[in-house]
C-alpha cells in the first residue's frame, strides 16, 4: 500500500511539475537505468579520486613554496623547480633590495642529498635550510619556538612524523643519521603535517644545510626569497627582474610552484599513470552507459515507431534519448560527489592526500557529462530501427 501511495505521489508530482519527458522516463524506470547511473558514478568517482590524488601529490611537492611568505623567488636560470636550483651568488640580494616593491630578502637553501640511515642503508632526502627567526620568509610554519632554538646548534634537523619511517628513524629524541659524511641529529618531530615535499625532508638552519649540501661554494646559495610590500606587485617585479637579468630566473611563488609540479608530473610519470587510469574509468562508464541506453531504446522501439508513424520527427526522439543520457549522467554525478568526498576523507588517516579543488571537480564533472552525452549518441543508432512499417508486419 505504501509503495503504491509513493508511486502515485511521484507520478502526481512529476506531472504537476511538467518535467521533461526524458527525465520523467528515467525517473519512473529507475531500475532500467540504474546500471548506467552506477557506471557513471563509478567512473566519475574513479577519475576524480585519481586526479585528486595527483593534485595532492603535486601539492605536496610545492608545499614549501605555498607555505613560505615569499612572493618572488630568485634561482639559477632554467630551474626546474624547488630543490633543483644550482648555486647562485648571495650578492644577488642587492638586485632584489634595489627594487622599490621589495620589503625583505632572505636566503633559502634547498637541495637533494643521500641520507644514511642508522642501519647503514641510504635513501634520497631533501635538505631545507632556512632562517630561523620568527617570521622569516622561508620558515616552516610547523616549527615550534623550542625546535627553532634547538636547530641553532649545527648538525641538527627536524623531521615530519609521517616521514620518520621513510628515513629509518624512530620517534625518539636524539636519533642520528648521516648526510654527505656529516652527522645529523634529529632534535624534533613535526606533528600534524603531511610532509613538505615529495621526498622525506630534513629541516634545519642555513648553516647546517650548507654543510649537508656541500659542496656549496662560499657566498652562494640556491634560492633568494623576496617579500613585496603588496603581494599584487609580485608578477610585475618578477617580470622586470627577468628582463633585466638574463643570468637568473625570477618567478612568483605561483610560477615556481607550477614549475615544480610540472617537473614531478612528467618526471614521475604519475600524471600518465593516473591519467590513464582515470581515462579507463571514463571509458568503462561510457560503455556501460551507452549499452544501458541502447538497451532502453531498443526496448522502446515499438513506441518510438508509433511516434514516427504519427509524424513526430526523428530529431525529437533523438533529443529524448540524449536527454535520457543527460539525466542518467547527472544522477551518476550526484551519486559520485558525496562518495568521492567521503573516500577522500577516509584516505587522510593513511597519509594519502586527495585534494578536490572546485576546478577539478568541475572539470571531471564536465568531462563525465560530455562522455555521458557521447554514449547517448551510441544509443541513437537504435532509433534507426524505429520503422513504423515494422509495426504492421
Amino acid at each position, binding site marked *: 500500500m505504501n509503495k503504491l501511495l509513493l508511486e502515485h505521489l511521484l*507520478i502526481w508530482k512529476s506531472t504537476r511539475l511538467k518535467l521533461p*519527458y526524458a527525465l520523467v522516463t528515467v525517473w519512473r524506470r529507475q531500475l532500467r537505468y540504474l546500471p548506467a547511473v552506477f557506471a557513471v558514478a563509478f567512473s566519475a568517482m574513479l577519475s576524480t579520486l585519481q586526479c585528486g590524488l595527483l593534485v595532492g601529490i603535486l601539492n605536496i611537492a610545492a608545499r614549501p613554496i605555498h607555505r613560505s611568505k615569499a612572493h618572488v623567488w630568485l634561482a639559477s636560470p632554467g630551474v626546474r623547480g624547488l630543490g633543483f636550483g644550482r648555486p647562485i651568488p648571495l650578492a644577488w640580494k642587492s638586485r632584489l633590495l634595489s627594487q622599490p616593491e621589495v620589503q625583505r630578502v632572505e636566503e633559502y637553501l634547498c637541495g637533494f642529498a643521500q641520507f644514511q640511515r642508522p642501519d647503514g642503508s641510504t635513501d634520497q632526502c631533501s635538505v631545507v635550510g632556512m632562517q630561523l627567526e620568527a617570521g622569516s620568509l622561508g620558515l616552516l610554519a610547523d616549527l615550534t619556538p623550542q625546535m627553532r632554538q634547538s636547530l641553532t646548534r649545527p648538525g641538527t634537523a627536524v623531521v615530519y612524523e609521517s616521514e620518520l619511517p621513510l628515513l629509518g628513524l624512530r620517534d625518539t629524541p636524539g636519533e642520528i643519521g648521516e648526510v654527505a659524511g656529516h652527522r645529523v641529529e634529529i632534535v624534533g618531530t613535526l606533528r600534524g603535517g603531511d610532509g613538505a615535499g615529495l621526498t622525506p625532508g630534513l629541516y634545519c638552519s642555513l648553516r647546517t644545510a650548507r654543510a649537508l649540501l656541500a659542496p656549496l661554494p662560499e657566498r652562494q646559495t640556491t634560492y633568494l626569497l623576496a617579500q613585496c610590500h603588496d603581494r599584487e606587485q609580485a608578477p610585475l617585479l618578477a617580470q622586470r627582474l627577468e628582463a633585466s637579468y638574463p643570468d637568473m630566473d625570477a618567478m612568483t611563488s605561483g610560477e615556481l610552484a607550477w614549475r615544480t609540479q610540472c617537473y614531478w608530473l612528467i618526471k614521475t610519470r604519475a600524471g600518465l599513470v593516473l591519467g590513464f587510469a582515470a581515462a579507463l574509468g571514463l571509458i568503462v562508464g561510457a560503455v556501460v552507459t551507452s549499452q544501458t541506453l541502447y538497451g532502453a531504446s531498443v526496448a522502446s522501439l515499438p513506441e518510438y515507431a508509433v511516434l514516427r508513424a504519427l509524424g513526430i520527427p526523428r530529431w525529437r526522439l533523438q533529443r529524448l534519448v540524449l536527454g535520457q543520457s543527460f539525466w542518467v549522467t547527472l544522477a551518476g554525478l550526484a551519486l559520485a560527489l558525496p562518495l568521492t568526498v567521503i573516500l577522500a576523507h577516509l584516505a587522510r588517516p593513511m597519509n594519502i592526500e586527495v585534494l578536490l579543488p572546485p576546478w577539478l571537480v568541475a572539470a571531471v564533472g564536465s568531462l563525465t557529462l560530455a562522455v555521458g552525452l557521447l554514449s547517448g549518441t551510441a544509443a541513437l543508432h537504435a532509433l534507426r530501427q524505429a520503422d513504423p512499417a515494422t509495426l504492421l508486419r
Partner: protein
Amino acid sequence: MVQTLTAHNLRRSFGSGDTNVVALDDVSLELHPGELSLLMGPSGSGKSTLLAVLSGLVPPDSGQVVALGQKVWALSDLQREEFRRQSTGFVFQGYNLFPALTVREQLEMVLLWAVGTPPREAERKVEAMLDLLGLAEKADRLPEQLSGGEKQRVAIARALIKDPQLLFADEPTSALDWQRGQQIVELLKASARQRGAVLVVVSHDSRLLPYADRVLHLEDGRFSQPERPAAPELPRRNP
C-alpha cells in the same frame, strides 16, 4: 480539401528471385470519409502491406496513392513525414504505449511534438479527449495500471488527438475480448464519422462485419471477391 483516399494499380513485392513474394498485385480502391472500410483476408494476404502503402509507410513498387488530393508517393520523405504528421492517425495491434508515461503524457507528447500545439492548448485538448473516451479518471495512470481495453482506448486517443483526416487501425481488437473489442470499434467508427475521417481497419475478425460500411476482401495480394455491400447498417449515431 478532397477527402477521399484512392489507390491506383498498386503493386508491391518482397524478396527477389525464388524468394520473391507478391504482397500486392494490381490493387485499386477508393475510400470515403466518415466510413469504416474493413480490410479482411487470411494471413499473408497483403492486408498489412496495403495498409502500410495507403498510409505512406511502405512504398509500392508501382502504382499511386492519392490521399486528400495529394499523391502520397510523389512526395519526398520529408514531405511524406509532414503529411503523416498533419493528416494521419494510427492504431496498432499492440498498444505500444510508453511504459513510463501516464495516459495524459502519452497524448500531450503527440500534440506538443507532432503538431506543435502550445502547452496550455494541448492540456485543454488532452482533457477533452480523455473525457470523450472515458479516460479522465485514468489520466495519471501508467499503462501497467490499465486494463487491455483501457490501453487500446489510450492508443485510439493518441491516434485521434491530432484530429487526423486519415485513420488507420491494424487489428485493433485482436488483443481484446469481444465486449471490449466491440466498444473499440464503435469508438473508432463514431470518431471517424464525427470527424469526417477516412477509417481503414485491418482485421480478420468477422464479428466486425456489421460495423463496416465497406468490406474489402484481399487474398494473395488481390481483391478476391467483388466488394461486398456491408450488412444492414446499424443505427447511425448523431455526430
